[in-house]
Every structure is written in structure tokens, then in C-alpha cells.
């Protein structure tokens, strides 16, 4: 028969812990502020910069000339990369604009094939949008703009233009979703029983999930990929995002800025009395990223690895601050299973 064991378990008649009583008006305020001051302007910014990239490539086939514009697009995209709400999650937009990680090198293989295709000069945004997601977005365009040659031949230039057009089209769809009367912003701001957000509390929970899953992904995926690559190769690995254009670390830093802005500008961090702690830790992360860059610039892979490991800890600490100091204090308790039960 089974042995009866009493460990740390304490039995009691159930009284489910009640989360703090939250003011519905306050919740709505956080959501409204996040929509108007965070999501809409940042998504709008991406739409603007992708339009500039489109124009730049339409005006010149000199890759060098478009590189700075591309860098600005990556900066703007990095801010919203983890804003996985609404249109970003449908029609594969997240992957179409940024297919990463590309574990099997699909982008490279497909791009090689495409650039060898004599009919590539006939590509446009519509036809590129029907191809593999690995060919449609920023990593694919980076391959062309930061490749071997500066002056692109007409056909390769057409491929770059088609990708830029496609990226701009996706950015416009995201912008439209955040502005339209029936888009994601509307649903977040107007919860109903039969909608994906049934209450303002669920809308707030969705915002906090954006922050928490973003931080988790940065720590587990991006930073780990860099560490692993550096351990093997002693230089920034080719599986790191935007390594060709040298934006791996700025992508990471802007990812964090995007999450910081959501938590702080929405007013959620302040209401949870966690603004100071969060800002302090986000600043630490920025300083550590600068320190990693310094180590990489001097070719000291070992130091870069230990600094990336430290950065990983800082991002984990930010995750804990967001999930405990902010979420719990705002009465949004993400359950053990509901966060990611599998």
C-alpha cells in the first residue's frame, strides 16, 4: 500500500485566493494609453520607414545608398517585434517580415535559387508574397543589400524592390489593424463576452503577456543563440539576427526598448509601483549590451560570452519584475498552466 507522506503540503478547505480588486476604469486607462501612446505610434513609425525604404530602392539600385534606410527599418521593427497581437499573428505576418531563427538555412538556399532564376526581374510585391516566408522579409532583403556587390544588377534590384514593397505592405496592414474601427485596438478597448477579450482585465492581461513572452523569448532564444554561436565560432554567429548588417545587438536593445515602453508608457508599471525598478533594470540591460559590443569589437569572445550570460540574467530578472511586481500587483495573475501548459 502507499505510504502516507506529509511533506510541505498544507491541506485546507478551499478558498481560492482573490486577486486584488482592480478598478475597471483604471484598466481601461492602461489599455487606452498603450494603444494611443505605444502601439499606434510605433507601428505607424514602421509603416513610415518601410515606405522610405521602398522609395529608396525604387530610386536607386545602389545597395549602399539603401543600407542606412534599411538600418532605420530594422530599428523600428525591433521595437514592435514582440507586439504579437492582432494582425501580427495572422497570415504569417510575423514570420513574413522577420523569419528567424532560420535553423536550416532556408533563407540562404532559397535566395541563392531566386537570384539564379532568370525570371526574377518580373517579381513584384504580390508574387514575392506568395513565395516562402524566408524570402519575403527583412533577413532576405538584408542578404541582398549587405551582400557582395554594391551596385545591383537590374534583376537583383527588382528582387530587392519587391521585398521592400512587400515589407511595406505588411507594415501598412499592421498599421491599419491598429487604427481601424474593427481592428485589434478596438477589440482591446471594447471587450465583450463573445470577443477574444471579454473584459478590460483580459485586455490588460494580453498586454502583460506581450511583455512577458517577449522577455522570455529574448532570454531563451536570442541571447542563447548568440552565446552558443560564440562558444563554437568565437565570432558573432550567422544564426544571430541581422548579423550581416551588424545590427544583432541593436535589434536586441530595441526589442527591450519596445517592451520597456509598453510597461512604462502605458502607466502599468507606475500603478504597480514598479517603474523605478524596471527602469533601473532596463538601463542595466542597455549597459550590458554596450559592454558586449565592446568585447566583440576587441575580439574578446570569452568576455562577450560572460557578458551575454549576465545579460540573460538581467532579462530574466526583468521577466520576474514584469510577472510578479507588475502583473501580480495589478491583480493579473497568470496561472501556472495558463502561461504555457503545453
Amino acid at each position, binding site marked *: 500500500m*502507499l505510504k502516507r507522506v*506529509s511533506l510541505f503540503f498544507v*491541506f485546507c478547505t478551499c478558498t*481560492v485566493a482573490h486577486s486584488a480588486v482592480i478598478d475597471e476604469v483604471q484598466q481601461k486607462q492602461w489599455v487606452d494609453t498603450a494603444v494611443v501612446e505605444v502601439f499606434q505610434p510605433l507601428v505607424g513609425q514602421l509603416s513610415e520607414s518601410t515606405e522610405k525604404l521602398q522609395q529608396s530602392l525604387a530610386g536607386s539600385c545602389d545597395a549602399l545608398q539603401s543600407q542606412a534606410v534599411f538600418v532605420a527599418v530594422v530599428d523600428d521593427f525591433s521595437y514592435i517585434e514582440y507586439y504579437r497581437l492582432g494582425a501580427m499573428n495572422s497570415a*504569417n505576418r510575423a514570420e513574413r517580415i522577420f523569419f528567424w531563427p532560420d535553423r536550416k538555412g532556408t533563407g540562404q538556399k532559397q535566395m541563392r535559387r531566386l537570384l539564379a532564376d532568370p525570371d526574377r526581374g518580373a517579381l513584384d510585391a504580390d508574387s514575392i508574397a506568395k513565395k516562402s516566408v524566408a524570402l519575403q522579409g527583412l533577413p532576405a532583403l538584408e542578404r541582398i543589400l549587405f551582400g557582395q556587390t554594391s551596385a545591383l544588377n537590374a534583376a537583383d534590384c527588382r528582387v530587392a524592390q519587391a521585398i521592400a514593397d512587400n515589407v511595406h505592405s505588411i507594415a501598412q496592414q499592421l498599421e491599419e489593424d491598429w487604427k481601424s474601427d474593427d481592428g*485589434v485596438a478596438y477589440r482591446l478597448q471594447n471587450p465583450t463576452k463573445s470577443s477574444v477579450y471579454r473584459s478590460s482585465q483580459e485586455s490588460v492581461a494580453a498586454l502583460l503577456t506581450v511583455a512577458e513572452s517577449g522577455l522570455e523569448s529574448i532570454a531563451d*532564444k536570442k541571447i542563447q543563440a548568440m552565446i552558443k554561436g560564440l562558444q563554437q565560432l568565437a565570432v558573432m554567429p550567422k544564426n544571430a539576427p541581422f548579423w550581416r548588417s551588424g545590427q544583432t545587438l541593436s535589434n536586441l536593445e530595441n526589442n527591450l526598448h519596445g517592451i520597456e515602453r509598453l510597461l512604462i508608457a502605458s502607466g502599468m508599471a507606475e500603478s504597480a509601483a514598479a517603474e523605478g525598478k524596471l527602469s533601473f533594470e532596463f538601463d542595466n540591460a542597455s549597459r550590458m549590451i554596450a559592454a558586449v559590443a565592446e568585447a566583440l569589437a576587441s575580439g574578446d569572445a570569452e568576455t562577450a560570452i560572460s557578458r551575454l550570460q549576465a545579460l540573460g540574467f538581467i532579462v530574466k530578472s526583468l521577466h520576474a519584475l514584469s510577472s510578479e511586481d507588475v502583473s501580480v500587483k495589478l491583480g493579473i495573475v497568470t496561472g501556472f*498552466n495558463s502561461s504555457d501548459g503545453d
Partner: protein
Amino acid sequence: MAINRRQFLCLASVASHAATNSVRAIPEKSERLLASAYQSSQSGAYGVALCDTRGKLLRSEVLPGRGHAVCFRPGGEQLVAFARRPGRFMQVLDLKGNKPSLQIDSQVDRHFYGHGCFDAAARVLYSTENDYQNARGVIGVYDAHTQYSRRGEFPSYGVGPHEIILHPDGYTLVVANGGIETHPDYGREKLNIPEMRSSIAFIDSRDGSLIKQFYLPDSLQKLSLRHMAISQYGQCFFGAQYQGAAEDMPPLLGTVSLKDGLQMLPMSAVQLASLKSYISSVCVVPGTDIFVASSSRGGEAVVCDAKKRSVLQVVSGRDGSGVAAFGTRLFYSAGDGTLRQYAQQQSRWRPEGSAQQIDTRWDNHLSVNAG
């Protein structure tokens, strides 16, 4: 290492013999036990626990990492707790004697997906595993008579196999291929969402061959079929998790059988909104075509009649996920340590007694032994 034909025939002879006796008599005075993986609220340690049907803790054992599903070996001698994806252990607990637990590690280039099932003879254990270098699912085959030595594997006929259950015919394995590629280098990140393709495969355990496979229509390409339960009549009920925009609110529940194929269960917008695109666990009420599907994200579980294709009732429990049933009783465990019990009265399930809450977090699944 693929299982060879000789190994198959040896193990299959046991399985097919048992198939003819697959409906096992349950001793009247046997003890019903509930089991679940958990995390300690205090120390954060992971473990597996056994309770009686009043929710009283009988035994707990620390696991090397986070567990997922727990599977009783028919006959009640042992239970197996599986590591949660991408974990690499399964832990075998001796329930009758005092033997120390046995930890079985996954093969070096495989990891577990958190589920497994025994054959009807209680000899062979099948587990869903990831051949992550080749991005394909496999079913690991373990011999319970030889300390769970791994005898080989066969394909799951898809990517990301999750729950595996034994069909009442005694030899068919039903596998939910979630369709999502993951690789340990990227933790739990989903790597192939645009191309994912989920399916349910009916596999002949005697030789690992595919009997039939059912796919979702293109319009539901981003549904990941994960959890299943099967009635004694061979009706399989499944629950899915959606990888697209939450706003889409696609159907999440359905049935599949070799005879009738795969069909989704219609639900209202309010019901779908409450499930939050995420089914976390499924169980069958034995002897019926009634199934229960929980959504930890929605904090609700729906009781469905697979024959009438309708939702009979909704029960609530914050972070509730584990569901298990026997006789006229239904159990519902939650991440806040609550274990709720319901008793069937006419066509409704009504709460019975006070819910028990302990200082732990019940993990995704709850299992009940055959008594």
C-alpha cells in the same frame, strides 16, 4: 535506432494477446488514485503526487525537472511521469512495494513530449519523442519487463507528437501530431508556424505501420492537435491549441474515428471566447461518449456529448487544467493547487464537497488509475 521486425513481433505478440482481453474487470474494492505532476509553491521544485479521491495527498516524489502527464501502468503496480517538452526523463514509481524510483533518460538525440501509454498487457510503454535533428516525431518503445529498456522506435507520421493513447481494439495507437517543430537549441520556441501541419495518426503498434492519418482542412492549418481521450466504443475526442491570431476564435474540439473520420465540434462564439484558443487537457467519462475538455487559459472546462455533438455544461476553475473521470465522478485540478470534485446527478455535474486546495501547483494533466 529503428525497432526491428523481430523485436516488434516479440512485443506485439504480448500486445495482441492482450487485445482480445482488453476490457479488464475492475476489482470492486480497489483503491482509486489520482496522480499529477506539480510544482511546489514554496520551493519551486517539481514532482509527481498521488492523492486519494478526497484529494488527500498520499505520496509525492521530486522529479528532476518539470513533469507533464502521468500514466498508470495497467494493474496498478507502477506509474510513469513524463518530462515536459523538451525534457529528457521519465520517472517510474513503484506503487506496490518500496522499490526506488527508476529514472529513464531519453536517447541522446531525442527528447520526450510529455505523454505516453501502455499496451493492454502492461508490458510495453510507448512515448512520444522528438527526433529534433531531423524535425520528425517518433514513438519510443520501452519494455516494462526489462527496466524499461528502449527496444526501438517507429515514426509518429508527423512533427511534434504530443498525446498518445491506446485504442480499445488493444493494438492501435492514436497519436496527436501537433505539427509544431521545436529544437532544444531554441528552448520551447515554435520554428515552423507558417508551414505547420497537425494530424491524428492511427498506428498499428504491432509493426509501427500507419493505419490511417487524418489532417485538418487548410482553413484550420494553424490548429495544433494536442490532447485526446478515447471512449470504449472507439470514439476519439481531441482538443487543439491555435497558433494564429487569438481573434480568429476557430473551433478547438472535435472527434475522430477510423469509421467517421475527423469532424470539428460546433461551438458558439461565447463558448469559444471562454476557451481562449487553447485546450489544455481532455478526458472521457468511462462507458459513455461524454468528454471533458479544459482550457487553463480560459479557466473553464466544457463537458461535451460527442454523439449529440454539443456542449452540455461548463465548469469554472481559475488556471484549471487537469481533468479525470471515473464512474459518475469528475475531477478538475488547477495551477493554484485546487482539486475540485463533481458528481453526476441526472444530466448535470454538480460540485461535491468543498474543493481541496494544497500549497502546490497542479500541472497540466490529472490521471486516475483503473482501480
